[in-house]
C-alpha cells in the first residue's frame, strides 16, 4: 500500500528542515536570489556609465569599488547575478525538460526506441558541450543572455536524460504501472499520471544540478569571449578585468566578487542536491 499523499509531503518537510546541507544550500541560493532581485534598486548607477574615479577600492560610496573605466563594480555585480539566474533557469530548465522527455520515452518504451534515444544521448554527451557552444557562438554576431541560455540548454540535456531514463526503468518495474496498463490508459497518460509524480523529486534534483552546470558553462563561454555582446554577466566581468590587466594591477575587487558569487551559488546548488538525495533516500542520512 502506498501511504496517502499528504503524509508523504509532511514527511518530506520533516526531514528536509532537519537536513543541514539542504537548509544551508537553500539559504545561500535564496540570499543570492534576493540580491539579484533587489540589488539593481540599491544602486543609482547605470551598468556602463562612468560612475566615479577609476580603480577605486571598495568604499562606503562604491561598495565593491570601481573598474578601470570608473564603472561601479557593485552595479555590474548585481546585474551579472541576474544574468546568472536567467541562464540557470532557462538553460537548466530547458535541459531538464528536454532530458526528461527523452529519458521518459526511452525508459518507458524500451526496445528500439530506447536503443536509438540512448545512442543519441551517448553521442551528444561525448561531444564536449563547450566546444559546440564555441563553434555556434563564434558565428553568431549578436548574442544575448537568452540565446546563450537556449544553446546551453539544448546541449546539456543528455545528463538529465540518462538520469530520468534509469529512474523510469526502475519505476516501470513496479506493479502500479502494469495496473495502469491493464486498465488501458494511453502511454502518455501513464507517463503523466503515474510516472511523473513519482519522479518529481528526482527531476527537481536533476534541475538543481543542471542549473549549476548551465551557470558555469555560461561563465566559461563569457570568459573566452563568446558571451553576450550586450549587457553584463559574471563571466564577462571576469573577462573584462582580465583583459584590462586587473591581475597585474592588483584590482582584486573587480575579479573576486563575480567568481566568488559563482562558486558560492553553484556550490550551494550542489550542496542542496546532496541534501535532497539524503532526504529522499533514508540510507544516506547522517548517522
Amino acid at each position: 500500500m502506498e501511504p496517502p499523499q499528504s503524509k508523504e509531503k509532511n514527511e518530506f518537510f520533516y526531514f528536509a528542515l532537519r537536513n543541514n546541507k539542504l537548509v544551508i544550500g537553500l539559504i545561500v541560493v535564496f540570499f543570492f536570489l534576493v540580491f539579484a532581485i533587489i540589488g539593481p534598486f540599491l544602486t543609482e548607477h547605470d551598468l556602463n556609465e562612468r560612475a566615479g574615479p577609476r580603480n577605486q577600492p571598495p568604499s562606503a560610496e562604491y561598495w565593491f569599488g570601481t573598474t578601470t573605466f570608473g564603472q561601479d563594480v557593485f552595479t555590474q555585480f548585481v546585474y551579472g547575478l541576474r544574468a546568472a539566474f536567467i541562464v540557470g533557469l532557462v538553460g537548466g530548465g530547458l535541459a531538464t525538460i528536454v532530458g526528461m522527455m527523452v529519458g521518459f520515452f526511452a525508459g518507458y518504451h524500451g526496445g528500439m526506441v530506447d536503443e536509438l534515444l540512448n545512442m543519441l544521448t551517448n553521442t551528444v554527451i561525448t561531444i564536449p558541450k563547450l566546444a559546440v557552444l564555441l563553434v555556434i557562438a563564434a558565428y553568431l554576431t549578436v548574442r544575448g543572455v537568452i540565446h546563450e541560455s537556449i544553446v546551453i540548454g539544448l546541449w546539456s540535456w543528455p545528463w538529465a536524460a540518462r538520469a530520468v531514463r534509469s529512474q523510469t526503468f526502475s519505476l516501470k518495474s513496479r506493479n502500479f504501472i502494469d495496473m495502469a496498463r491493464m486498465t488501458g490508459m494511453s502511454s502518455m497518460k501513464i507517463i503523466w499520471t503515474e510516472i511523473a509524480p513519482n519522479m518529481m523529486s528526482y527531476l527537481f534534483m536533476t534541475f538543481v544540478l543542471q542549473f549549476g552546470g548551465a551557470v558555469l558553462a555560461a561563465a566559461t563561454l563569457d570568459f573566452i569571449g563568446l558571451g553576450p555582446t550586450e549587457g553584463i554577466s559574471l563571466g564577462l566581468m571576469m573577462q573584462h578585468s582580465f583583459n584590462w590587466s586587473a591581475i597585474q594591477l592588483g584590482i582584486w575587487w573587480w575579479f573576486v566578487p563575480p567568481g566568488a558569487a559563482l562558486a558560492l551559488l553553484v556550490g550551494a546548488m550542489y550542496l542542496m542536491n546532496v541534501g535532497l538525495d539524503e532526504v529522499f533516500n533514508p540510507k544516506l542520512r547522517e548517522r
Partner: protein
Amino acid sequence: MKRYFSRKVFIYILTFFLAVTIDWLVPRFMPGNPVQNMLSRASIQSDAAEVMRGYYTKAFGLDVPLWQQYLNFWQAIFHGDLGVSVYMFPEKVTNVIFRAVPYDLALLVPSVLLSWIAGNKFGAFAARSRWLDNTILPITYLLRATPYMWLAILMAWSLGIVWGIFPISGAYSFSMQPSFSFAFLVSFLRHWFLPFASLFIVQFGGWAIGMRNMIIYELEEDYSHYLESLGAPRSLVRKYAFRNAMLPQITGLALRLGQVVAGALATEIVFSYPGIGYLLLQAINNQDYFLIQGCFLFIVIGVLLANFIIDVVYVIVDPRTRQGMEGT
C-alpha cells in the same frame, strides 16, 4: 565483451560523424557571410586580403551544391586538410594545432590523473567521518563549483603578483628557446605549475565529492552488510566498497572529460599558456573560422580517444563486462 566494444565503437563513429557535420553546418547556416566576416576583422594588408578572399571562397566551396560541399568537407578531413589559418596566414591549421597540443597534454594528463586518484582517495577517507564531513567536505563542494578561470585568476594574482613566486604568463621564459637544458626545464616547470595546480584543485573537489557519495551507497549495499555480519574487519569492508565505488568513477571520468577540457581552455587563457585554449582565444578575436573549426575537431577527437582508453580500462577492471554482460 565484443558486443560491449562494438557498441561503444559504433557510438564513437556516430559521434565523430555528428561532430564533423556540426563543424560543417554551423558556418553555412549562421547569419552573415563567413568569408566577409572573417576578412573584415582580420587586420592584414590589402594585397594579402585579395589572396585570402580567393582562397577562402574556394575553401568554403560555397559555389557548389550543398551535398557536394558536404562531401568535399569530408574528403578534406580524410586528407588531414583543415584549411589555412587567417591569424597565422598562410600556415596550415593542422600545423598550428599540432604545435599547441603538447602543451594541452602537459596540463591535462597529469592534472586529470592525479586529481582523480587523490580525490577518490580523499573522498573515500572522508566518507562517514563526521568531522571531515562537516569541515573539509563543504570546501570541496565549493571547489567543485568554482569556475576554473576564477581559481586560475586568484592563483595568478596571489602567488604570481602579490607574492611573486610563480610566473603567470607563457609556457617558459620569453628569453629562452625550447631545449633540453636544465635551465629550460626549470623555467618550463615554473610556468607549468600554476595552471596545473588550478586545474588539479577544481577537479580534486569534484572527485572527492563523487567518491564520498558513491562509497556511502556502497557501504549500505547488501554485500557490505553481509561482510559485517560475518565479522569482517572494517578494512576489508571498505576495500570492497572502495573498489566498487571506483567503477562508476571511471565512467564518471569519461563523462566529465568535456568539462575538464573546457576548464583547461579557460585556464590556458588566463596564463597565456600556448595550448589549444589560448589558440582558440586568438582565433576568436581574429574571426579565424578555419582555426576555430580545427580546434573543435581536435578537441572532439581528443575526447573520443580518451573515452576509448577509459572504456578499455573499464573492461579490464569490471569483471561483469568481461563476463559478456552489459557494463553500465
